[in-house]
């Protein structure tokens, strides 16, 4: 399995330094009220994660419950369309319909070993909330999910799923009533419940050790891609790996085992919303500056006064004014290239994939697919796109736009 080495002072792509920094980004900017819980996690997460009994249960649930490994599918018609070789990493075929279950299983098992009795989570698109509610149901643990009011409206099926799974869904009514605000409320809940609660953060954001922990739980994606590519084409290295970035967990997972393979180009795709300069966007690397949000230093969309600005994306899972510190570092160092796709481009890409491959992707995922148009591939390039989730939750949006396209 993964090794636990002592990271150097600056951290590496694969592992932050002991203070949680990837280059200039990371850390744990938390009020004292969260210190004990975050420290407990920091002191124990690697020990627990790489404990043999934990790994056995984690791998078992990934396999028998989530349905891993997920297929790596050669998308023939899509490949012809772009005159290259495109493989889709089918995270949408996971139980609950997205990559989020990898992290939810990991963190809930970890929380149990820390003796926690109550699980809280934030959710944007609802996929992380559903995944967390699912694993909590499986384990018989109380689950509370915070979700922005706007997201509850646009992702109604997932709200119903969480409720059916026994979770309490608490509307976040502040700010733009989306993912940022749900995260604020979850953090405030954790401050008020310091003894029995674990906060399952759904992306590679938050104070150290969350970005590293979530990256490790999601790294199964690239671990499998390497094995599957080797089987299919005889080499484990593609030319490109592409993924959408909200906080960045599916991208972190899809990139992880390629981070040190410099021949592999990593392409992260953000949500441009109505256009980068429209004032209605969530393209953090384009619009953000270094700052602190939700406990880590990263790139943050903010005013000149350091007030966090309200982002916009048609996809609730990308509608967030920050990115994880690993991604800020990948951006700053140039290791990954950051592109963006607009709401309309994402919608078109969803319909295209549905017609070309018989797969309806999530709106988040559609951003990664839309960026295919911005790439210059050769015929022999091997391109892996992380198909992070399926589009069932987005049918209302898709039906609304069906006539227009």
């Amino acid at each position, binding site marked *: 399995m993964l090794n636990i080495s002592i990271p150097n002072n600056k951290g590496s792509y694969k592992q932050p330094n002991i203070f949680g920094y990837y280059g200039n980004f990371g850390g744990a900017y938390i009020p004292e009220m969260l*210190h004990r819980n975050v420290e407990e996690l920091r002191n124990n997460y690697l020990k627990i994660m790489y404990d043999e009994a934990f790994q056995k249960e984690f791998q078992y649930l990934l396999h028998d419950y989530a349905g891993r490994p997920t297929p790596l599918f050669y998308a023939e018609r899509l490949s012809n369309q772009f005159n290259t070789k495109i493989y889709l990493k089918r995270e949408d075929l996971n139980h609950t319909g997205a990559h989020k279950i990898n992290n939810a299983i990991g963190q809930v098992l970890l929380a149990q070993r820390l003796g926690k009795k109550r699980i809280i989570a934030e959710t944007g698109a609802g996929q992380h909330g559903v995944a967390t509610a699912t694993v909590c149901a499986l384990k018989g643990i109380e689950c509370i999910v915070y979700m922005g009011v706007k997201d509850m409206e646009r992702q109604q099926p997932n709200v119903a799923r969480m409720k059916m799974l026994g979770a309490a869904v608490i509307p976040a009514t502040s700010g733009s009533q989306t993912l940022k605000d749900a995260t604020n409320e979850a953090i405030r809940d954790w401050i008020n419940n310091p003894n029995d609660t674990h906060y399952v953060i759904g992306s590679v954001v938050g104070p150290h050790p969350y970005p590293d922990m979530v990256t490790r739980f999601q790294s199964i994606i690239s671990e499998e891609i390497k094995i599957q590519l080797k089987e299919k084409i005889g080499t484990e290295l593609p030319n490109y790996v592409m993924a959408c970035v909200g906080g960045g967990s599916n991208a972190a997972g899809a990139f992880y085992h390629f981070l040190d393979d410099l021949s592999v180009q990593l392409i992260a795709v953000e949500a441009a919303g109505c256009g980068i300069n429209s004032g209605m966007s969530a393209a953090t690397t384009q619009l953000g500056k270094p700052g602190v949000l939700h406990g880590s230093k990263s790139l943050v969309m903010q005013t000149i006064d*350091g007030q*966090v600005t309200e982002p916009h994306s048609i996809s609730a899972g990308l509608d967030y004014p920050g990115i994880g510190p690993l991604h800020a570092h990948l951006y700053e160092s140039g290791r990954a290239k950051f592109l963006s796709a607009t709401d309309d481009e994402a919608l078109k890409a969803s319909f295209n994939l549905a017609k070309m491959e018989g797969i309806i992707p999530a709106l988040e995922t559609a951003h990664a697919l839309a960026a295919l148009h911005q790439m210059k591939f050769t015929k022999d390039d091997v391109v892996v796109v992380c198909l992070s989730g399926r589009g069932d939750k987005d049918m209302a949006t898709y039906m609304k736009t069906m006539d227009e396209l």
Partner: protein
Amino acid sequence: MNRLEELFTRKKNNILNVYCTAGFPQLNNTIEVMKALQDNGADIIELGMPYSDPLADGPVIQSSNIKALQNGMTMQLLFEQLRDFRKEIYVPVILMGNINPVLQFGFENFCKQAASLPIDGIILPDLPEYEFENEYGSVIKKYGLDFIFLITPETSEERIKKLDALSTGFLYAVSSSSTTGNKKDFNAVEKYLQKINSMQLKNPVLVGFGIKDKSSFQSVCKYANGAIIGTAYIKAIEYSNNIQADTKAFLDAILN
């Protein structure tokens, strides 16, 4: 001797520190609110620098922050409002806020401007002690500002000692693990405060979060040098047309 030191030398008990949000309830109320607090018995003023996403605050202080921002408050404007404030305000004043707006203003620039007014101390709850020791503490010291750390019932004794050693001015004991304005059981608070009291800390200790009236003020003052009131005061002036009168009524009820 700076103002905080002078205060704690002169007065050991029943010290009242009141929090208000800059630019709240009206943009130009900042000085008027501070003056009213000083005139009616506040020993220290904790002036909040509004932030869009204050994580450690409950709904009342959150909405005062949002209101102040909607009023047009910015860091630049705050420093302009405070330019001549020492002509009227002689009690110690502490700036309190989240780290991000301070970073965007420029950390050193912030300290420099604060010290020139002068402001006496800073509270930045989401600036962790590692960052303080590694980078920011020396800048704060360079400008002669006090920096106050928070401790909570969950903070270990070893860590309390460390945060006490790093703090100057006073130590801010959060009464219970909660966001501001949350009600908690005061008996558990008593045990925690007794523990702190017996630790012989270097700094005076002020207790905050959940102090709202005379009885809660007096009960924590038994074990600490004083208390910090935030949410209850923000509520008292939220819709005020007469800051001076409403502040007087609020503080009289606590102090007399």
